[in-house]
Protein backbone atom coordinates (compact mmCIF):
# COMPACT_ATOMS: atom_id res chain seq x y z
CA UNK A 1 0.00 0.00 0.00
CA UNK A 2 1.66 3.17 -1.22
CA UNK A 3 1.93 6.23 0.97
CA UNK A 4 -0.69 8.84 0.05
CA UNK A 5 0.31 11.82 2.12
CA UNK A 6 3.93 12.52 3.00
CA UNK A 7 4.74 14.49 6.14
CA UNK A 8 7.27 16.95 4.73
CA UNK A 9 7.85 18.89 7.94
CA UNK A 10 11.29 18.87 9.54
CA UNK A 11 12.29 19.80 13.05
CA UNK A 12 15.32 21.99 13.58
CA UNK A 13 14.90 21.67 17.33
CA UNK A 14 14.26 25.37 17.79
CA UNK A 15 11.81 25.62 14.88
CA UNK A 16 9.66 23.22 12.89
CA UNK A 17 9.68 23.91 9.15
CA UNK A 18 6.59 22.91 7.13
CA UNK A 19 8.97 21.46 4.57
CA UNK A 20 12.76 21.31 4.18
CA UNK A 21 13.05 23.78 1.28
CA UNK A 22 14.30 27.30 2.00
CA UNK A 23 15.58 29.94 -0.37
CA UNK A 24 19.26 30.83 -0.31
CA UNK A 25 20.17 34.36 0.66
CA UNK A 26 20.81 36.67 -2.28
CA UNK A 27 18.94 34.56 -4.82
CA UNK A 28 15.35 35.37 -3.93
CA UNK A 29 15.48 39.11 -3.23
CA UNK A 30 13.53 40.03 -0.12
CA UNK A 31 10.85 37.51 -1.12
CA UNK A 32 8.21 39.86 -2.43
CA UNK A 33 9.90 40.14 -5.83
CA UNK A 34 9.10 36.46 -6.37
CA UNK A 35 5.41 36.63 -5.43
CA UNK A 36 4.30 36.48 -9.10
CA UNK A 37 5.85 33.02 -9.24
CA UNK A 38 5.78 31.49 -5.77
CA UNK A 39 3.21 31.42 -2.99
CA UNK A 40 5.67 32.21 -0.22
CA UNK A 41 3.85 30.32 2.52
CA UNK A 42 4.36 27.08 0.58
CA UNK A 43 8.10 27.29 1.20
CA UNK A 44 9.85 25.96 4.27
CA UNK A 45 11.11 29.50 4.60
CA UNK A 46 12.31 32.59 2.79
CA UNK A 47 15.87 33.55 3.62
CA UNK A 48 16.21 37.22 2.76
CA UNK A 49 19.00 38.93 0.92
CA UNK A 50 21.74 39.86 3.39
CA UNK A 51 21.00 42.93 5.47
CA UNK A 52 23.46 45.40 6.91
CA UNK A 53 22.36 48.19 9.21
CA UNK A 54 22.64 50.88 6.53
CA UNK A 55 21.68 50.71 2.85
CA UNK A 56 24.60 49.62 0.64
CA UNK A 57 25.49 50.17 -2.99
CA UNK A 58 27.44 47.00 -3.76
CA UNK A 59 30.27 46.48 -6.22
CA UNK A 60 30.71 48.09 -9.65
CA UNK A 61 29.69 45.92 -12.62
CA UNK A 62 30.33 43.45 -14.15
CA UNK A 63 29.06 41.73 -11.03
CA UNK A 64 28.11 38.37 -12.48
CA UNK A 65 29.33 36.10 -15.23
CA UNK A 66 28.10 32.75 -16.37
CA UNK A 67 30.59 29.88 -16.34
CA UNK A 68 30.16 26.20 -17.18
CA UNK A 69 27.06 24.97 -15.31
CA UNK A 70 27.36 27.77 -12.83
CA UNK A 71 27.88 31.43 -12.25
CA UNK A 72 30.50 33.57 -10.67
CA UNK A 73 29.32 36.60 -8.75
CA UNK A 74 30.72 39.53 -6.87
CA UNK A 75 27.57 41.52 -6.23
CA UNK A 76 28.97 43.09 -3.07
CA UNK A 77 25.92 42.76 -0.84
CA UNK A 78 23.94 45.82 -1.92
CA UNK A 79 20.73 46.30 0.01
CA UNK A 80 18.13 48.54 1.55
CA UNK A 81 19.36 48.28 5.14
CA UNK A 82 17.59 46.74 8.10
CA UNK A 83 15.25 49.64 8.93
CA UNK A 84 13.77 49.85 5.43
CA UNK A 85 13.38 46.07 5.49
CA UNK A 86 11.39 46.18 8.71
CA UNK A 87 9.31 49.13 7.54
CA UNK A 88 8.64 48.24 3.87
CA UNK A 89 9.16 44.53 3.37
CA UNK A 90 8.48 42.59 6.55
CA UNK A 91 4.79 43.57 6.87
CA UNK A 92 4.15 42.23 3.39
CA UNK A 93 5.97 38.99 4.07
CA UNK A 94 3.83 38.59 7.18
CA UNK A 95 0.69 39.21 5.15
CA UNK A 96 1.79 36.39 2.87
CA UNK A 97 2.31 34.16 5.94
CA UNK A 98 5.87 33.47 4.85
CA UNK A 99 8.31 31.90 7.29
CA UNK A 100 10.92 34.65 7.33
CA UNK A 101 14.58 34.02 8.02
CA UNK A 102 16.66 37.17 7.93
CA UNK A 103 20.22 36.95 6.70
CA UNK A 104 22.32 39.24 8.88
CA UNK A 105 25.54 40.95 7.74
CA UNK A 106 28.04 43.27 9.35
CA UNK A 107 31.27 45.05 8.56
CA UNK A 108 32.16 44.75 12.23
CA UNK A 109 30.98 42.55 15.09
CA UNK A 110 29.20 45.61 16.48
CA UNK A 111 27.23 45.99 13.27
CA UNK A 112 25.99 42.37 13.36
CA UNK A 113 24.79 42.99 16.91
CA UNK A 114 23.14 46.26 15.93
CA UNK A 115 21.27 44.61 13.05
CA UNK A 116 20.08 41.74 15.24
CA UNK A 117 18.91 44.08 18.04
CA UNK A 118 16.96 46.07 15.48
CA UNK A 119 15.35 42.90 14.08
CA UNK A 120 14.58 41.60 17.58
CA UNK A 121 12.18 44.53 17.96
CA UNK A 122 10.19 43.39 14.92
CA UNK A 123 7.47 40.73 14.78
CA UNK A 124 7.24 38.04 12.16
CA UNK A 125 10.75 36.63 11.92
CA UNK A 126 11.36 32.93 12.57
CA UNK A 127 15.13 33.06 13.11
CA UNK A 128 18.33 34.57 11.79
CA UNK A 129 21.01 33.38 9.44
CA UNK A 130 24.38 34.90 10.16
CA UNK A 131 26.44 35.67 7.08
CA UNK A 132 29.97 35.44 8.39
CA UNK A 133 31.45 35.65 4.90
CA UNK A 134 31.17 39.45 4.86
CA UNK A 135 34.52 41.23 4.58
CA UNK A 136 35.38 42.61 8.03
CA UNK A 137 36.67 46.17 7.85
CA UNK A 138 38.59 45.79 11.12
CA UNK A 139 40.40 42.65 9.91
CA UNK A 140 41.74 44.00 6.61
CA UNK A 141 38.68 42.74 4.78
CA UNK A 142 39.06 39.13 5.91
CA UNK A 143 35.77 37.46 6.66
CA UNK A 144 35.16 35.71 10.01
CA UNK A 145 34.15 32.46 8.28
CA UNK A 146 37.75 31.71 7.31
CA UNK A 147 39.07 31.44 10.84
CA UNK A 148 37.76 29.49 13.88
CA UNK A 149 38.63 32.24 16.41
CA UNK A 150 36.95 34.96 14.34
CA UNK A 151 33.94 32.69 13.78
CA UNK A 152 33.68 31.99 17.50
CA UNK A 153 34.00 35.63 18.34
CA UNK A 154 31.25 36.95 16.05
CA UNK A 155 28.83 34.05 16.65
CA UNK A 156 29.14 34.22 20.44
CA UNK A 157 28.63 37.99 20.49
CA UNK A 158 25.57 37.84 18.25
CA UNK A 159 24.15 34.83 20.09
CA UNK A 160 24.34 36.71 23.40
CA UNK A 161 22.54 39.71 21.91
CA UNK A 162 19.89 37.93 19.83
CA UNK A 163 16.49 36.93 21.14
CA UNK A 164 15.93 34.52 18.26
CA UNK A 165 17.77 31.37 17.19
CA UNK A 166 20.80 31.74 14.94
CA UNK A 167 21.92 29.69 11.98
CA UNK A 168 25.54 30.38 11.06
CA UNK A 169 26.27 30.23 7.32
CA UNK A 170 29.69 28.78 6.61
CA UNK A 171 32.12 29.40 3.79
CA UNK A 172 33.53 26.45 1.84
CA UNK A 173 36.82 28.26 1.27
CA UNK A 174 38.58 26.66 4.24
CA UNK A 175 40.92 23.71 4.66
CA UNK A 176 39.06 22.14 7.59
CA UNK A 177 35.31 22.74 7.66
CA UNK A 178 34.88 20.68 10.85
CA UNK A 179 37.10 23.12 12.76
CA UNK A 180 34.99 26.14 11.77
CA UNK A 181 31.73 24.25 12.27
CA UNK A 182 32.72 23.29 15.82
CA UNK A 183 33.79 26.84 16.59
CA UNK A 184 30.33 28.08 15.58
CA UNK A 185 28.66 25.32 17.60
CA UNK A 186 30.73 26.10 20.70
CA UNK A 187 29.88 29.78 20.29
CA UNK A 188 26.21 28.87 20.68
CA UNK A 189 24.99 28.76 17.09
CA UNK A 190 21.66 26.91 16.98
CA UNK A 191 22.32 25.46 13.53
CA UNK A 192 24.66 25.74 10.57
CA UNK A 193 24.05 26.33 6.89
CA UNK A 194 26.57 25.61 4.16
CA UNK A 195 27.96 26.17 1.67
CA UNK A 196 28.33 29.78 0.67
CA UNK A 197 30.00 30.25 -2.73
CA UNK A 198 33.44 28.95 -3.72
CA UNK A 199 35.95 31.66 -4.51
CA UNK A 200 36.76 31.64 -8.22
CA UNK A 201 38.14 33.59 -11.15
CA UNK A 202 37.12 33.99 -14.80
CA UNK A 203 39.35 35.59 -17.44
CA UNK A 204 38.52 37.29 -20.70
CA UNK A 205 41.29 36.02 -22.96
CA UNK A 206 40.72 38.76 -25.55
CA UNK A 207 41.51 41.49 -23.05
CA UNK A 208 43.53 39.35 -20.59
CA UNK A 209 41.47 40.91 -17.86
CA UNK A 210 39.15 39.47 -15.21
CA UNK A 211 35.54 39.09 -16.27
CA UNK A 212 34.36 40.54 -12.94
CA UNK A 213 35.14 44.09 -11.83
CA UNK A 214 35.96 42.68 -8.39
CA UNK A 215 38.45 40.24 -10.02
CA UNK A 216 37.38 37.29 -7.82
CA UNK A 217 33.85 36.06 -7.40
CA UNK A 218 31.85 33.33 -5.70
CA UNK A 219 30.97 30.23 -7.74
CA UNK A 220 27.48 28.77 -7.40
CA UNK A 221 25.12 26.58 -9.41
CA UNK A 222 25.08 22.91 -10.44
CA UNK A 223 28.87 22.98 -10.93
CA UNK A 224 29.47 23.02 -7.16
CA UNK A 225 27.03 20.37 -5.96
CA UNK A 226 29.48 17.51 -5.30
CA UNK A 227 31.90 19.90 -3.58
CA UNK A 228 29.12 21.24 -1.39
CA UNK A 229 27.76 17.81 -0.59
CA UNK A 230 31.15 16.61 0.66
CA UNK A 231 31.43 19.60 3.00
CA UNK A 232 27.88 19.19 4.29
CA UNK A 233 28.48 15.51 5.01
CA UNK A 234 31.69 16.24 6.90
CA UNK A 235 29.99 19.00 8.87
CA UNK A 236 27.08 16.77 9.84
CA UNK A 237 29.61 14.32 11.26
CA UNK A 238 31.48 17.04 13.14
CA UNK A 239 28.66 18.73 15.08
CA UNK A 240 25.53 17.95 17.08
CA UNK A 241 23.45 20.92 15.89
CA UNK A 242 21.21 20.77 12.78
CA UNK A 243 22.83 21.43 9.41
CA UNK A 244 21.12 23.08 6.44
CA UNK A 245 22.68 22.08 3.13
CA UNK A 246 23.01 24.10 -0.03
CA UNK A 247 25.10 24.34 -3.15
CA UNK A 248 23.94 23.68 -6.70
CA UNK A 249 20.56 22.14 -5.90
CA UNK A 250 18.29 22.20 -8.95
CA UNK A 251 16.09 19.11 -8.57
CA UNK A 252 14.33 17.15 -5.86
CA UNK A 253 16.96 14.44 -6.27
CA UNK A 254 19.72 16.99 -5.59
CA UNK A 255 17.93 18.07 -2.43
CA UNK A 256 17.51 14.47 -1.32
CA UNK A 257 21.24 13.87 -1.68
CA UNK A 258 21.81 16.60 0.90
CA UNK A 259 19.13 15.22 3.24
CA UNK A 260 20.55 11.72 2.89
CA UNK A 261 23.94 12.82 4.22
CA UNK A 262 22.21 14.38 7.21
CA UNK A 263 21.16 17.91 6.27
CA UNK A 264 17.80 18.62 7.96
CA UNK A 265 16.84 21.20 5.36
CA UNK A 266 18.15 22.64 2.12
CA UNK A 267 18.38 26.02 0.46
CA UNK A 268 17.80 26.71 -3.22
CA UNK A 269 19.93 29.47 -4.73
CA UNK A 270 21.09 29.88 -8.31
CA UNK A 271 18.22 27.71 -9.62
CA UNK A 272 15.81 30.55 -8.76
CA UNK A 273 17.48 32.72 -11.39
CA UNK A 274 16.64 30.48 -14.32
CA UNK A 275 13.61 28.71 -12.85
CA UNK A 276 11.72 31.07 -10.52
CA UNK A 277 9.49 28.19 -9.44
CA UNK A 278 12.41 25.85 -8.68
CA UNK A 279 11.63 25.80 -4.95
CA UNK A 280 8.04 24.62 -5.43
CA UNK A 281 9.07 22.09 -8.07
CA UNK A 282 11.77 20.68 -5.77
CA UNK A 283 9.27 20.24 -2.91
CA UNK A 284 6.97 18.40 -5.30
CA UNK A 285 9.73 16.19 -6.65
CA UNK A 286 10.88 15.26 -3.13
CA UNK A 287 7.33 14.43 -2.11
CA UNK A 288 6.89 12.29 -5.19
CA UNK A 289 10.09 10.40 -4.42
CA UNK A 290 8.84 9.70 -0.91
CA UNK A 291 5.51 8.42 -2.20
CA UNK A 292 7.23 6.18 -4.71
CA UNK A 293 9.54 4.80 -2.01
CA UNK A 294 6.90 4.41 0.70
CA UNK A 295 8.46 7.04 2.94
CA UNK A 296 5.69 8.61 5.00
CA UNK A 297 7.85 11.19 6.80
CA UNK A 298 10.67 13.04 5.08
CA UNK A 299 12.49 13.04 8.42
CA UNK A 300 12.88 9.26 8.09
CA UNK A 301 14.99 9.85 5.01
CA UNK A 302 17.36 12.32 6.68
CA UNK A 303 20.79 10.78 7.40
CA UNK A 304 19.96 7.55 5.58
CA UNK A 305 23.20 7.64 3.58
CA UNK A 306 25.45 4.59 4.10
CA UNK A 307 28.97 3.94 2.86
Amino acid at each position, binding site marked *: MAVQKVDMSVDLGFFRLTNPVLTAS*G*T*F*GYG*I*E*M*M*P*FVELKKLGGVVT*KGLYFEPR*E*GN*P*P*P*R*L*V*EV*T*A*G*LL*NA*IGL*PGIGVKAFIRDILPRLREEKATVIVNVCGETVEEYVKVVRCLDEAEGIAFYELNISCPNVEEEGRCPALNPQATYSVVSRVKKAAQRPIVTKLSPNVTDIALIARAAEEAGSDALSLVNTFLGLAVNVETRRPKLANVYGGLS*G*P*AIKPLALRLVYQTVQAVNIPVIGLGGI*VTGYDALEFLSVGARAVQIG*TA*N*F*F*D*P*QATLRIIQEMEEFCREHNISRIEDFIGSFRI
Partner: protein
Amino acid sequence: MEREVCLVQAKILEKYKWGQYILFYLFAPEISKLAKPGQFVMIRVSEQFIPLLRRPFSLMSVDPSEGRIAIFFQIVGRGTSRLSQYSPGESLSLIGPLGQGYSLSVLKPGDKVILVGGGRGIAPLFFLAQQLKEKKIRVMIFYGGKSAQDLPLKSLIEEELGVEELVLATEDGSLGEKGLVTEVLERKEIWPRIERVYVCGPEAMMRKIARMIEVWGVPGEFSLETYMGCGLGICWSCVRRIKKANSWSWVKICEEGPVFPGEVIKWEED
Protein backbone atom coordinates in the same frame (compact mmCIF):
# COMPACT_ATOMS: atom_id res chain seq x y z
CA MET B 1 6.88 45.62 -6.72
CA GLU B 2 3.74 43.63 -7.47
CA ARG B 3 3.57 43.33 -11.20
CA GLU B 4 1.88 41.41 -13.91
CA VAL B 5 4.40 38.99 -15.25
CA CYS B 6 3.94 35.50 -16.64
CA LEU B 7 6.01 32.37 -16.80
CA VAL B 8 4.84 30.51 -19.91
CA GLN B 9 5.77 27.85 -22.41
CA ALA B 10 5.55 29.57 -25.78
CA LYS B 11 5.44 27.62 -29.02
CA ILE B 12 7.50 28.92 -31.92
CA LEU B 13 5.10 29.66 -34.77
CA GLU B 14 7.44 31.02 -37.43
CA LYS B 15 11.16 31.47 -37.83
CA TYR B 16 13.12 33.66 -40.24
CA LYS B 17 16.87 33.74 -40.57
CA TRP B 18 19.12 36.25 -42.30
CA GLY B 19 22.76 35.31 -41.67
CA GLN B 20 23.39 35.99 -37.98
CA TYR B 21 19.93 37.53 -37.42
CA ILE B 22 16.91 35.51 -36.35
CA LEU B 23 13.25 36.40 -36.02
CA PHE B 24 10.86 34.19 -34.06
CA TYR B 25 7.12 34.58 -33.82
CA LEU B 26 5.88 32.86 -30.68
CA PHE B 27 2.47 32.04 -29.28
CA ALA B 28 2.28 33.79 -25.89
CA PRO B 29 -1.20 35.29 -25.47
CA GLU B 30 -0.73 36.38 -21.83
CA ILE B 31 2.46 38.25 -22.60
CA SER B 32 1.03 39.77 -25.80
CA LYS B 33 -1.81 41.31 -23.81
CA LEU B 34 0.43 42.89 -21.18
CA ALA B 35 3.51 43.96 -23.13
CA LYS B 36 4.53 47.53 -23.82
CA PRO B 37 7.23 48.68 -26.26
CA GLY B 38 10.68 48.54 -24.72
CA GLN B 39 9.82 45.70 -22.37
CA PHE B 40 11.60 42.38 -22.61
CA VAL B 41 11.26 38.66 -21.95
CA MET B 42 13.73 36.24 -20.35
CA ILE B 43 14.12 33.06 -22.37
CA ARG B 44 15.52 29.76 -21.18
CA VAL B 45 17.59 28.67 -24.14
CA SER B 46 18.43 25.22 -22.80
CA GLU B 47 16.82 22.79 -20.39
CA GLN B 48 20.33 21.60 -19.57
CA PHE B 49 22.86 23.60 -17.52
CA ILE B 50 24.90 24.99 -20.39
CA PRO B 51 23.99 27.77 -20.87
CA LEU B 52 22.57 28.02 -17.38
CA LEU B 53 20.95 31.42 -17.22
CA ARG B 54 18.07 32.84 -19.20
CA ARG B 55 18.78 35.49 -21.80
CA PRO B 56 16.92 38.80 -22.15
CA PHE B 57 15.25 39.74 -25.46
CA SER B 58 13.33 42.89 -26.30
CA LEU B 59 9.91 42.32 -27.74
CA MET B 60 9.99 43.19 -31.44
CA SER B 61 6.29 43.07 -32.06
CA VAL B 62 3.12 42.06 -30.36
CA ASP B 63 -0.27 41.05 -31.73
CA PRO B 64 -2.72 40.55 -28.84
CA SER B 65 -5.58 39.59 -31.19
CA GLU B 66 -3.59 36.56 -32.38
CA GLY B 67 -1.71 36.04 -29.10
CA ARG B 68 1.57 36.42 -30.92
CA ILE B 69 4.82 38.06 -29.93
CA ALA B 70 8.07 38.37 -31.84
CA ILE B 71 11.69 38.47 -30.81
CA PHE B 72 14.53 39.47 -33.10
CA PHE B 73 18.11 38.75 -32.18
CA GLN B 74 21.63 38.40 -33.45
CA ILE B 75 23.78 35.34 -32.77
CA VAL B 76 26.53 36.76 -30.57
CA GLY B 77 27.41 33.98 -28.11
CA ARG B 78 26.57 30.61 -26.64
CA GLY B 79 23.03 31.51 -25.57
CA THR B 80 21.87 33.12 -28.80
CA SER B 81 23.59 30.40 -30.80
CA ARG B 82 21.66 27.71 -28.93
CA LEU B 83 18.42 29.69 -29.29
CA SER B 84 18.94 30.00 -33.06
CA GLN B 85 18.76 26.20 -33.35
CA TYR B 86 15.10 26.00 -32.31
CA SER B 87 12.48 25.39 -34.98
CA PRO B 88 8.77 26.12 -35.39
CA GLY B 89 6.69 23.69 -33.34
CA GLU B 90 9.17 23.64 -30.46
CA SER B 91 8.43 25.52 -27.23
CA LEU B 92 10.48 27.89 -25.14
CA SER B 93 10.11 28.91 -21.50
CA LEU B 94 9.49 32.66 -21.35
CA ILE B 95 9.13 35.10 -18.47
CA GLY B 96 7.63 38.47 -19.23
CA PRO B 97 6.84 41.13 -19.93
CA LEU B 98 9.59 42.63 -17.82
CA GLY B 99 11.03 46.08 -17.21
CA GLN B 100 9.94 49.61 -17.97
CA GLY B 101 9.44 50.48 -21.63
CA TYR B 102 9.34 53.64 -23.72
CA SER B 103 6.84 56.33 -22.77
CA LEU B 104 4.23 57.17 -25.36
CA SER B 105 1.73 59.06 -23.26
CA VAL B 106 3.63 62.33 -23.65
CA LEU B 107 2.84 62.37 -27.38
CA LYS B 108 -0.26 63.64 -29.17
CA PRO B 109 -1.50 62.81 -32.69
CA GLY B 110 0.48 64.63 -35.34
CA ASP B 111 3.66 64.86 -33.28
CA LYS B 112 6.81 63.89 -35.06
CA VAL B 113 9.35 61.53 -33.49
CA ILE B 114 12.59 59.85 -34.52
CA LEU B 115 13.49 56.22 -33.82
CA VAL B 116 17.16 55.27 -34.13
CA GLY B 117 18.10 51.60 -34.18
CA GLY B 118 21.58 50.19 -34.55
CA GLY B 119 21.79 46.57 -35.72
CA ARG B 120 19.75 44.27 -33.47
CA GLY B 121 18.75 47.40 -31.52
CA ILE B 122 15.96 47.89 -34.05
CA ALA B 123 13.88 45.24 -32.21
CA PRO B 124 12.10 47.29 -29.51
CA LEU B 125 11.70 50.23 -31.91
CA PHE B 126 9.72 48.08 -34.32
CA PHE B 127 7.18 47.40 -31.56
CA LEU B 128 7.24 51.07 -30.58
CA ALA B 129 6.58 52.13 -34.18
CA GLN B 130 3.57 49.78 -34.31
CA GLN B 131 2.03 51.58 -31.37
CA LEU B 132 3.01 55.06 -32.54
CA LYS B 133 1.24 54.34 -35.80
CA GLU B 134 -1.95 53.53 -33.90
CA LYS B 135 -1.63 56.83 -32.05
CA LYS B 136 -1.18 58.68 -35.35
CA ILE B 137 2.28 59.88 -34.45
CA ARG B 138 4.51 60.75 -37.41
CA VAL B 139 7.51 58.43 -37.27
CA MET B 140 10.91 58.67 -38.91
CA ILE B 141 13.15 55.62 -38.48
CA PHE B 142 16.93 55.64 -38.78
CA TYR B 143 18.18 52.08 -39.14
CA GLY B 144 21.93 51.58 -39.27
CA GLY B 145 24.48 48.80 -39.41
CA LYS B 146 27.88 47.84 -40.71
CA SER B 147 26.55 46.68 -44.07
CA ALA B 148 23.35 45.68 -45.90
CA GLN B 149 23.21 42.30 -44.18
CA ASP B 150 22.87 44.03 -40.81
CA LEU B 151 19.57 45.60 -41.86
CA PRO B 152 17.43 42.50 -42.43
CA LEU B 153 14.23 44.10 -41.15
CA LYS B 154 14.20 46.74 -43.91
CA SER B 155 11.42 45.04 -45.91
CA LEU B 156 9.33 44.26 -42.85
CA ILE B 157 9.53 47.89 -41.71
CA GLU B 158 8.45 49.07 -45.15
CA GLU B 159 5.59 46.56 -45.34
CA GLU B 160 4.21 46.73 -41.81
CA LEU B 161 5.02 50.01 -40.15
CA GLY B 162 3.97 52.64 -42.70
CA VAL B 163 6.41 55.16 -41.31
CA GLU B 164 6.77 58.60 -42.79
CA GLU B 165 10.42 58.08 -43.60
CA LEU B 166 12.88 55.21 -43.28
CA VAL B 167 16.53 56.25 -43.48
CA LEU B 168 19.01 53.42 -43.89
CA ALA B 169 22.69 53.83 -43.11
CA THR B 170 25.56 51.39 -43.58
CA GLU B 171 29.21 51.93 -42.74
CA ASP B 172 30.31 50.34 -46.03
CA GLY B 173 27.65 52.08 -48.09
CA SER B 174 26.19 48.78 -49.31
CA LEU B 175 22.67 49.97 -48.50
CA GLY B 176 21.20 53.43 -47.93
CA GLU B 177 23.50 56.27 -46.97
CA LYS B 178 27.16 55.62 -46.33
CA GLY B 179 28.43 56.22 -42.82
CA LEU B 180 27.49 55.69 -39.21
CA VAL B 181 23.83 56.18 -38.47
CA THR B 182 24.82 58.98 -36.10
CA GLU B 183 26.63 60.84 -38.93
CA VAL B 184 23.63 60.47 -41.21
CA LEU B 185 21.40 61.70 -38.41
CA GLU B 186 23.59 64.75 -37.88
CA ARG B 187 23.54 65.65 -41.57
CA LYS B 188 19.75 65.72 -41.64
CA GLU B 189 19.42 68.76 -39.35
CA ILE B 190 15.88 67.90 -38.39
CA TRP B 191 15.92 68.47 -34.66
CA PRO B 192 13.81 71.60 -34.30
CA ARG B 193 10.75 69.82 -35.66
CA ILE B 194 11.13 66.73 -33.49
CA GLU B 195 9.16 66.04 -30.31
CA ARG B 196 11.13 63.06 -29.02
CA VAL B 197 13.83 60.56 -29.95
CA TYR B 198 13.76 56.85 -29.11
CA VAL B 199 17.01 54.94 -29.34
CA CYS B 200 18.35 51.40 -29.07
CA GLY B 201 21.74 50.19 -30.24
CA PRO B 202 25.42 49.97 -29.37
CA GLU B 203 26.65 52.06 -26.45
CA ALA B 204 28.82 54.37 -28.60
CA MET B 205 25.91 55.13 -30.92
CA MET B 206 23.54 55.88 -28.08
CA ARG B 207 26.07 58.06 -26.29
CA LYS B 208 26.64 60.16 -29.43
CA ILE B 209 22.93 60.62 -29.94
CA ALA B 210 22.45 61.54 -26.29
CA ARG B 211 25.01 64.36 -26.69
CA MET B 212 23.50 65.45 -30.01
CA ILE B 213 19.98 65.80 -28.73
CA GLU B 214 21.14 67.49 -25.57
CA VAL B 215 22.50 70.31 -27.73
CA TRP B 216 19.22 70.53 -29.61
CA GLY B 217 17.13 70.28 -26.47
CA VAL B 218 15.12 67.31 -27.72
CA PRO B 219 14.18 64.70 -25.10
CA GLY B 220 15.37 61.17 -25.77
CA GLU B 221 14.78 57.70 -24.37
CA PHE B 222 17.42 55.00 -24.57
CA SER B 223 17.13 51.26 -24.13
CA LEU B 224 20.25 49.95 -22.39
CA GLU B 225 21.68 46.52 -23.02
CA THR B 226 23.43 44.86 -20.09
CA TYR B 227 24.41 41.42 -18.91
CA MET B 228 21.44 40.11 -16.92
CA GLY B 229 21.47 37.21 -14.49
CA CYS B 230 17.77 36.81 -13.85
CA GLY B 231 15.73 39.71 -15.24
CA LEU B 232 13.57 39.55 -12.11
CA GLY B 233 15.40 41.97 -9.83
CA ILE B 234 16.74 39.26 -7.53
CA CYS B 235 20.37 38.85 -8.60
CA TRP B 236 21.42 42.53 -8.53
CA SER B 237 23.89 42.06 -11.36
CA CYS B 238 22.56 44.23 -14.20
CA VAL B 239 23.33 47.59 -12.61
CA ARG B 240 24.43 50.83 -14.25
CA ARG B 241 25.03 54.33 -12.98
CA ILE B 242 21.73 56.18 -13.18
CA LYS B 243 21.08 59.63 -11.75
CA LYS B 244 18.57 59.55 -8.91
CA ALA B 245 17.85 62.54 -6.72
CA ASN B 246 20.95 64.26 -8.11
CA SER B 247 23.42 61.50 -7.37
CA TRP B 248 24.64 58.52 -9.38
CA SER B 249 23.32 55.21 -8.04
CA TRP B 250 23.76 51.63 -9.19
CA VAL B 251 20.33 50.91 -10.59
CA LYS B 252 19.01 47.54 -11.70
CA ILE B 253 18.39 47.78 -15.44
CA CYS B 254 15.92 44.88 -15.39
CA GLU B 255 13.66 46.57 -12.86
CA GLU B 256 13.88 50.32 -13.48
CA GLY B 257 14.99 50.03 -17.13
CA PRO B 258 15.94 48.98 -19.70
CA VAL B 259 14.62 52.31 -21.02
CA PHE B 260 15.82 55.54 -19.40
CA PRO B 261 15.72 59.20 -20.38
CA GLY B 262 19.10 60.28 -21.74
CA GLU B 263 19.83 62.79 -19.00
CA VAL B 264 19.91 60.21 -16.20
CA ILE B 265 22.28 57.77 -17.91
CA LYS B 266 26.00 57.74 -17.18
CA TRP B 267 27.52 56.71 -20.50
CA GLU B 268 30.41 54.30 -20.69
CA GLU B 269 33.43 55.82 -22.41
CA ASP B 270 35.40 53.93 -25.08
